[in-house]
């Protein structure tokens, strides 16, 4: 295998996995708090659009990410109010958010950029003397867009927060038995609201990565099911961010493999090649889905004193 192929594969794997890692991390946090966020895809899409618009206006990728995070967070507020505060059905509201976000972003995009199709510049990546010149590693490890490093740090920080801090403990307990958390004097609504909000922010960042880094422009429905993929990965990770990151990398690798296979002209029908990542997820699901563990109170609204 040539050096170029290996580099392309690894770079592609990382690039494809980052949006899944970000969104999946958000989903994982909200699931541990007992909120099933079916609207993740919608939050990603809003993040992709918000990030694109802000980056275009300011000319800054970082501002674009801020815009994506804000957009995703705003959408998750709908979830906070309807599901966490008022106790409505999380799945119904989630689907509503997804459909609403799809419609809204497509409409806004058509109204604003119907004939112009603007593009963003390439996202910046570090260039470290000597290190960046190492073959393969130089590009794969030291030459990624900055957001890749931020994402990896976020994975470890989230793992630490969940395991070692009072808020992490409260989040873990809330997903299992909100009554116990309430009785212990912790505000269940607050814990779930913050967890849902962080899911929105992280999904927004993941979406923004797609438009700012991966493609450099916004295309309607560009998330293409990644939100749902992230949701599945979060469930398979059994609440452990590190497993989520590994799952996202596996999916990313399968995606990169399809691209590589196409580029290097291997003679398999593209339909089959394109379905590879999804087949991988299906196989992983059947292999490991049996012993996945979900919080006991997932998707159940909590209203004090109700039986």
């Amino acid at each position, binding site marked *: 295998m040539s050096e170029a192929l290996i580099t392309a594969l690894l770079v592609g794997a990382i690039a494809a996995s980052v949006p899944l890692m970000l969104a999946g991390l958000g989903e994982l946090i909200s699931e541990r708090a007992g909120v099933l966020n079916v609207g993740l895809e919608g939050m990603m899409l809003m993040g992709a659009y918000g990030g694109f618009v802000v980056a275009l206006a300011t000319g800054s990728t970082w501002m674009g990410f801020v815009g994506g995070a804000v957009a995703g967070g705003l959408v998750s507020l709908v979830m906070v109010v309807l599901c966490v505060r008022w106790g409505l059905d999380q799945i119904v509201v989630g689907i509503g958010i997804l459909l609403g976000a799809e419609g809204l972003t497509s409409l806004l995009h058509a109204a604003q950029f119907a004939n112009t199709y603007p593009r963003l510049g390439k996202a910046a990546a570090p260039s470290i003397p000597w290190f960046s010149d190492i073959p393969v590693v130089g590009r794969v490890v030291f030459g990624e867009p900055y957001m890749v490093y931020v994402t990896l740090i976020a994975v470890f920080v989230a793992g630490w927060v969940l395991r*070692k801090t*009072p808020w992490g403990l409260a989040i873990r307990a809330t997903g*299992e038995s909100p009554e116990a958390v309430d009785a*212990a004097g912790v505000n269940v609504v607050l814990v779930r609201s913050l967890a849902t909000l962080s899911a929105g922010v992280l999904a927004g960042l993941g979406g923004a990565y797609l438009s700012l880094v991966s493609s450099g422009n916004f295309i309607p429905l560009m998330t293409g099911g990644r939100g749902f993929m992230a949701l599945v990965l979060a469930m398979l990770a059994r609440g452990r961010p590190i497993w989520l990151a590994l799952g996202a990398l596996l999916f990313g690798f399968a995606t990169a493999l399809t691209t590589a296979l196409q580029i290097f002209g291997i003679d398999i029908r593209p339909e089959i090649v394109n379905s590879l990542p999804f087949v991988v997820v299906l196989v992983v699901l059947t292999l490991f889905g049996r012993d996945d563990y979900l919080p006991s109170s997932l998707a159940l609204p909590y209203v004090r004193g109700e*039986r």
Partner: protein
Amino acid sequence: MDAEAIRSERDSGTPLIELIGITKRCPGVLANDDITLTVERGEVHCLLGENGAGKSTLISILSGMTVPDAGMIRIGGTETSMDSPRHALDLGIGTVYQHATLVPTLTVLENLILGNTTGVRLNEAEGLRRLDELASILGADVDPNAVAGNLALDEQQVIEIIKALWKGKAALILDEPTSMLTPAGVGELANMLQRLKGTGLGIVFITHMLHEAIEMGDRVTVLRQGRVVGTIAPAELRSTDPERLRERIVEIMFGEEANELSDVAELHVEASGSTSPDEPDSGGSSDGQGQPAGEPILKLERVSLEPSQSSHGLHEVDLTIAEGEILGVAGVGGNGQKELAEVLAGQRPIDSGSISLRHNGAFIQIGRLGVHSRHEMGLRYLSDDRRGEAVVGTMSVAINLVLKRIGKPPFWKRQIIQHAEVWQHAEAVIKEFDIRTPGPDTNIGKLSGGNIQKAILARETASDPRIVVYNKPTHGLDIRTSLAVRERIRQMAADGVSAVVISNHLEELLDLCGRIAVVSKGRIVGIVENGPNAERRIGDLMVGAFAL
């Protein structure tokens, strides 16, 4: 005023907690009606009352879960609103709820430090220190790293108490803490309460058991239909003998109905503990043989279930139950009782062995039959998980009563539901079993546990039962409902319907059963013929099994 200050003001003369004129209206009922009571420091205040008397509502008001519609709460002499559990905890009132509030997937220590959200990192060292301190006050041995869900119920209860004491520096409220405990566990709890009283803590203790109230309480308040109907002050409680006290409490609890109730033997058995019940006539004389007297109806031979993480499984269980026999199953909770019940009911497939039921004169292997076929053949099961598994809480009482006969006439004709028939059936059953419900169309989940149990009892014993498996049939029920359930079991046995009664209350088994099988770690370690020494022998088997 902070919790320490509230507690330390012992000599000021103001009571620890004062409830004045507390009224709470719940849909359709006045749950608390002008309740006034005080809790003093260093005193155990017992609350007694039937199911639905308003005890639980009063507890949720004291713990901040419910805000009363009217009335005043004073803590240490200061009026307070108590509008959240957090507020109650900050005032130093800790509560042990009736339902388990430990998070099963977290460790003991994590459960205990859950409420503490100050600081960036979890303060485990501080938590361990406080745990040691409280465990030594209670005289308990606690492993901080054990996962809560893996602990036995007795151990979980100790953790619940430690958790309540964590912030509850002034008062401890216990809502039916003994209902899931073994007799040894109850004794231990009594010792712990004695020690806690000594530290100046005020304790509110709710129970269904009169003898517990008499033994552990310094002051007794009786609730009935949301009102305080009587109080027994410490002086009287200390000076009167237990027999007399019990009569007095029963009188307060049931008013003019007390006479008919006080004739019933169980009340005395519960209080004295050692009274031997009458020798049952079906028991036979072959003491120690463990053979049933009548014609066998159900046989279990070498029935086994593989053990798993959460269960001991079953190990080569042999049992024969005779027609009209009431067989008891005793043992420390979680030693295979639930597995045995579910294996009998057909909810769990067995891994080896055979179960056979006499049907139309011949024994039929039913080991592979499902719940429905077994139900049809007259084998019925009353689950201990009433709300979860036995009823559909969001459906009406009427529908729940025919839940196991879906599609069958007269309630369904040509697959179409006959609402009139279902309704009439429900009305008749509600009357016969005295189910307290606003109507047949009320969602069954809104009823109290006792009334749900009556409905399940009605459903499972309808249309030709031949053998009924009861898992904790009177758990959490008040005295009157418990008696009604037991009476029903006894009556049916007289008509030839066999029963398997699984219970945590030895007293109940001694009252009902001819033979009592003792289970431990998924095995039957002995079958005891009911008689003068039965209680001690069962106790030995349970404890002996402990040491294995």
